């Protein structure tokens, strides 16, 4: 049964496998033009090229370039080699070789992608084919640098679900029981006047007036003029302890203090009736926090904040993370480092950074849950490490965020609306590949989520495929979801009106992204083991282009389990039907006091 059904998904993702085997009679490919095209996608050019496949050797084919993708199809039909790459993943295009080099196909093009691969093409000298393709690619891969719109604005796809409706800040706060007598919703940032990188709707302590907020804002973070407040991310349903986020205080070399900020932190502490100290987690290594004083930043000193205790979480900055991922790519693409795989992996430090992020998030979550203490999380600006920590802690504490929809809400809230600078970190449509602002912070977060889902295979409603799809469209620019740096810019660009949401795609075919082992458990805090002994490299993502590394998709155990679940549902339904008919027959028999529904719940208990 399991083997006969066609694979539903494929870890190469982007809805295309890189290699397809088709029958020999599929000739005439040039005319049949089975090139996939989205509504709104327009063809720009096509050229004969040789694709220098690092695994397979040179492949003769024809490349098609549209305003959305680069699509290559081999001339050879057995097997057909297909390459389907959204232009958004391209980070750099380089010419290699040329007139000075010898050989028929000496005109080369090297394309560096954001998704852990490089593509190399060889072109003929005649007709300036390389120059043409280089120019077309550059123009459409980097629309921002050429005053063009992202493909998301041209995309005319239709979905049965509207992903923009997934996240409504007000209903998300209401889900958490907010506002209440201690916390209120404020519209002070409605026009992004208080902080242009924060959402318009904020939750703050009831006892803090809007005037207080403005004063405090001036004392937080150098980059966000006038700065940002401590605002609520999540409230514990039982002990009312909260997770707050903010940016670093503007302490500076002179050790400035701000009475309003100090009082505000006290208000937060008191808001859950807490007598003990407020816990502040500074995501940075201690030395970095000190160094930040030189540029006007800093951290909360003990003198100024006697009712708070400060911990540093030792997570490194965006530059360190970028270099780490670069090293990781070096050992997995195109060839996997063979002789010393594990020590090479160790020397990238990638897993170690993952570990530190997870460790930090565990501390935050544990403090809120077991320590019953409100916590405040910040790094320098509060949009990278802070987002990682708060969102992961929330994922550990609140089972709602482990559902497909809840996870979408989490990403939408903690990352998109609270101003993780996606545009700068990913560099959407920007040709400046060496921009120091780029960093795989969001990828790291998704990796952490994957690590958690590995350690708790039943706790997440979504599967690995959802995570890979999110990462693919983080770069693709097919959806408006991850475009731009903040809510205010997104509003200005009318993203929700003019583009589609990634969640529309996902929610329209949820079954593809559902984890069959998921069992709903409410209010159970999950603490993954953040030890190198238990963390793993996400092979299905980082090494997915290498056909040598085995990936079994779909997992046959999962498939079998899904079949069994379907069978169980069928039995349960039939049983219920029978019971209803039987109950009506022997309705006066008081002996069977157990109702069918009771029995059902009984059966379900061991899942």
């Amino acid at each position: 049964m399991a083997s006969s059904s066609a694979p539903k998904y494929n870890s190469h993702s982007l809805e295309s496998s890189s290699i397809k085997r088709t029958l020999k009679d599929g000739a005439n490919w040039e005319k049949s033009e089975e090139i996939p095209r989205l509504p709104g996608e327009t063809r720009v050019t096509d050229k004969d090229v040789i694709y220098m496949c690092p695994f397979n050797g040179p492949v003769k084919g024809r490349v098609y370039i549209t305003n959305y993708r680069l699509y290559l199809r081999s001339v050879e039909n057995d097997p057909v080699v297909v390459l389907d790459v959204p232009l958004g993943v391209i980070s750099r295009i380089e010419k290699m070789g040329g007139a000075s080099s010898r050989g028929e196909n000496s005109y080369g093009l090297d394309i560096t992608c954001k998704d852990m691969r490089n593509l190399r093409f060889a072109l003929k000298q005649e007709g300036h084919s390389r120059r043409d393709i280089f120019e077309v690619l550059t123009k459409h891969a980097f629309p921002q640098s050429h005053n063009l719109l992202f493909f998301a604005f041209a995309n005319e796809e239709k979905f049965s679900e509207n992903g923009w409706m997934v996240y409504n800040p007000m209903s998300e706060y209401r889900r958490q029981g907010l506002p209440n007598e201690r916390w209120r919703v404020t519209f002070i940032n409605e026009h992004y006047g208080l902080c242009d990188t924060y959402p318009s709707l904020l939750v703050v302590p009831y006892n803090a007036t809007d005037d207080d907020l403005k004063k405090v804002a001036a004392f937080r973070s150098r980059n966000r003029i006038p700065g940002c407040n401590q605002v609520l991310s999540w409230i514990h349903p039982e002990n009312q302890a909260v997770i707050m986020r903010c940016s670093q205080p503007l302490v500076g070399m002179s050790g400035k203090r701000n009475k309003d900020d100090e009082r505000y932190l006290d208000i937060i502490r008191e808001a859950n009736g807490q007598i003990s100290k407020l816990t502040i987690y500074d995501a940075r290594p201690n030395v970095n926090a000190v160094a930040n004083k030189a540029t006007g930043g800093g951290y909360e000193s003990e003198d100024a904040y006697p009712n708070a205790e400060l911990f540093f979480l030792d997570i490194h900055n965006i530059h360190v993370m970028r270099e780490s991922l670069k090293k990781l790519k070096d050992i997995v693409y195109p060839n996997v480092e063979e002789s010393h795989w594990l020590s090479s992996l160790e020397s990238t430090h990638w897993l170690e950074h993952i570990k530190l992020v997870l460790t930090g998030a565990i501390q935050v979550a544990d403090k809120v849950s077991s320590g019953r203490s409100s916590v405040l999380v910040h790094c320098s600006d509060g949009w990278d490490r802070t987002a990682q920590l708060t969102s992961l802690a929330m994922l550990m504490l609140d089972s709602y965020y482990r559902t497909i929809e809840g996870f979408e809400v989490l990403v939408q809230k903690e990352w998109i609306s609270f101003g993780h600078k996606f545009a700068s970190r990913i560099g959407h449509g920007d040709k400046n590949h060496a921009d120091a602002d780029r960093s795989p912070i969001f990828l790291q977060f998704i990796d952490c989520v994957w690590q958690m889902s590995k350690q708790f295979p039943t706790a997440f409603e979504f599967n690995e495929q959802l995570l890979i799809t999110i990462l693919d469209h983080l770069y693709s620019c097919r959806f408006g979801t991850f475009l731009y740096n903040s809510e205010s810019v997104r509003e200005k660009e009318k993203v929700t009106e003019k583009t589609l949401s990634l969640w529309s795609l996902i929610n329209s075919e949820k079954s593809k992204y559902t984890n069959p082992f998921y069992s709903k458990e409410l209010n159970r805090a999950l603490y993954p083991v953040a030890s190198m002994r238990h963390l793993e490299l996400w092979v299905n993502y980082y090494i997915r282009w290498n056909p040598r590394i085995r990936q079994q998709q779909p997992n046959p155990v999962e498939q079998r389990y899904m079949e069994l679940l379907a069978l169980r549902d069928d039995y349960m339904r039939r049983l219920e039907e029978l019971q209803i008919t039987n109950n009506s027959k022997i309705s006066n028999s008081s002996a069977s006091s157990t109702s069918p529904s009771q029995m059902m719940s009984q059966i379900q208990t061991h899942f």
Partner: protein
Amino acid sequence: MSAARGGLSALPVLPGEVVLEAARGVRHRGAGGSVRGTLLCTNVRVAFVPGAQPPSFSPFLQSDYSVALRCIRTLVAASSFTKPTVLTATSTLSFIPEELAVFCRDFRLLRFHFPENGLGLQAFRVANAIAQAWETATWPGDSGSHVDATMGDDEDEEEGSPPTLLFESLQDWERELQRLGAVGWRVSAVNERFDMAPSLPRYLWVPSALLDHDLKRTFAHFQERRVARLCWHHPNGSDLLRAAGFHAASEPGSEDIRCLEVLLGAGCRPCVLADTAELPSPPDIQLAHLRLRALCLPGAAADEKWLSALEGTRWLEHIRACLRKAVEVASLLAGRRCSVVLQEPSDRDLSCLLASLVQLLADPHARSLRGFQSLVQREWVAAGHPFPQRLGLRRDSPREESPVFLLFLDCTWQLLRQFPAAFGFTEAYLLALHDSAFLPYCSTFLFSCQRQRGRGGVQQPRTQTYTPVSSRWDPPGSTVCRLPPVWAWGLRYSRQQRARFRNPAWDPGPVGTPDAVDPQNTGTPSSTWSGSSSGAVLALSKGSLTPQPFPWRSGRPPPRLLRWAPSLETLSDRGGDPIPPPPRGLLLPCAAGPSVRLWRRCYLRGLPEAQHGRLAPCPALLLEELALLQERLRAWQQDGAHAEPASSPLAPSRQRRVAAIGGAR
């Protein structure tokens, strides 16, 4: 004393087992938290009976809380006043212990904590008793009169599948040879009295063309007289043989040479000699395992250095070498009709591993639960792998310890991880087998060859019984061999546990035999072979075939090196985006670094961080639930027909059963 008796009654003892000491109110600290109960020391094991736990229905039942004395590697007692002390029988405790840590050979770590309130003496006595008993505990194979248990084979029935073959009897060998369809091969009883080769099994598969009379000529030319014999036959006609190294001093005459060549299948098809030079040696394996074990202790390596420390054990490297070699041999067998002779000097260690690994890759039958057990039985137990020495269970031979068998289990786990639907058994099964290697109450791993087992008094399958003179292995009145084989899972594992042994995702594929491979398909250019005559003798090394004469031949080999394609390197490193799908039934695992993982669930069990609740829900439980639902459905349907509330599926007994199953998790 009442404390001890209380514990005594709660522990169902083995026949012949005596409780030596007991301490109540002890806390066991495990991954699931701390449990209170009674700690007992018997002459067989250290057992812990949790306070609330009802006595298990069988004394053999596997428990997370107890450990056989001989499975203990190190005992450490600790208190807050002194530094931790390693306990031995001679070094008696000089303080009242607060904690006793038992480091087990199967990678478990049991921690028993003694509360302070007046239990000091008990703690002292039980700790000392354990140290004493551990030191003096005899291995059944040592004395033979250890446990007197009479048990039948309690294998649970599996519909339609053949039973586990023990390869003690002639019928088993005949039956398996028939299954393989190995025409041209026969069962020879030439070693029935173990006088031809003492460490070989009674029966051997040899070419039909070779009479026993001629066969006898060949023994002398192999080390330890371990002659070449068939292991496995590919339906395309290829044969897998195994043999010890050629005897250095032998000088076969021309008649002997003829017999040897018939035996090796040389002459009519290429004969490939595959030695074990690229595989780790038993000392390598032992060293790697020691390092791995040390590394898997709590706090053994700084976390940020874990990966390189793991690499430094070389354990994973050894696994990769074994997988690579097995892939080479398996694709060679599938690629063209040939005979491959696995040759290890002793033929008792890596040959066992390689022969069974190749069969796991090539023969779907070997991947069924029973097929796997038969495979272990033939290639390890019957073939004379010296289990007692290699597992380090004998006191007299500590130097010979080398967990070759455990390395094989790890290789199997790697295959299972890479091909989750190709096996009839699960990780839980492999783990159970791993742990069972150290159990004193199974006979399977107690002996180093069939001859020794026979002397132990196993039931003789033949009518004429020749009993060699009694040796030190054979005390009169021995009852050892009445112990059940390790495969009698029903004795040690509950029904629910055993349900987890079966892989519900298993796709046995087409019943029968694997495909022959089209040589073009795997990339074996026929030209690589055509250069050599059909009677060529080649050596397989580093993925290449080199012509190599038999040592007794004077002919010179042609100097040309033949590159043989379908090794792992060529097949996969070539990159081959369109890797040709391996022929049906043939598994070609990837041995690259990222694909070979640490078997965490086995080796990291002793670590404090919980592995609790981190398993995916087991489909076996779902299957059980389905059976229950089905039954209930049937009952209701009958109800509907007869309208008889008395047989309602909601009858209390049924409900209890549901609850029991739910609780068993």
